[in-house]
């Protein structure tokens, strides 16, 4: 589920946060490996040169598309084994922070992903305009289709 904290004025400058949560039927140790081992991370998120070391700069790399080089620039901010992992996430003119929180839950692990720092400003709109339209509109269509 996403829980966008939304203001009534789209032009306002305060930032907003995206939260996705899910309980996985596996112990925190296994989740932690999937989140922090570069080769495992590449299998579900993106190719990367991640190492769980605070202060380390790294990149996620997706297939380039027209007008987007596919690169996400990151820096490790928090490494608290089995509990919390955080890195900055910079791409397409959007600077944000991703925070993972693992909590033991009945029958598995509760995983919470919080991405914060969304500013609905003109820079984002401009960058969005330059993001390959075909792909972008395809995604948009899905997003709109998923709304009531």
């Amino acid at each position, binding site marked *: 589920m996403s829980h*966008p904290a939304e203001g009534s004025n789209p032009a306002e400058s305060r930032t907003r946060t*995206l939260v996705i949560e899910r309980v996985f039927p596996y112990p925190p140790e296994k989740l932690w490996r999937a989140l922090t081992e570069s080769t495992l991370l590449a299998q579900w998120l993106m190719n990367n040169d991640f190492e769980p070391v605070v202060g380390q700069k790294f990149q996620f790399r997706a297939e380039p598309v027209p007008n987007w080089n596919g690169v996400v620039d990151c820096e490790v901010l928090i490494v608290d084994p089995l509990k919390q992992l955080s890195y900055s996430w910079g791409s397409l003119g959007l600077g944000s922070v991703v925070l993972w929180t693992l909590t033991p839950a009945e029958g598995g692990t509760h995983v919470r992903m919080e991405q914060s720092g969304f500013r609905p400003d003109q820079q984002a*709109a401009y960058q969005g305009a330059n993001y390959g339209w075909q792909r972008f509109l395809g995604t948009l269509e899905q997003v709109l289709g998923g709304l009531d």
Partner: protein
Amino acid sequence: MVSGVKPASANPVFRALADPTRRAIFEELTRQGEQTVHALTHYAGVSQPAVSKHLTVLKRAKLVRHRREGRETHYRVQPDALAPMVNWLNLYGAFWRDRFDRLEAVLERMGS
């Protein structure tokens, strides 16, 4: 808690940009800044009446605005109009949900 995009507000924008020629005109305006109808006609490679028609659709969707100067009409983008469309929360929401599904598959494959 409100979902960011309302289809009612995004659809005119979506429809206006669904046409490849209009999208090309709009992209050209985001790249070059303000342009005359004359210059846009040259760029788009279609007739001036066709370009004017496309610009009218973009104008109705509030994606562009115009000003007249002498005989020339100048068009420029109105980036705010993209706000209902470029919704990072929704785009990244779809992105992360997809990645969570992939994570689940990876966890399954990892064994115990």
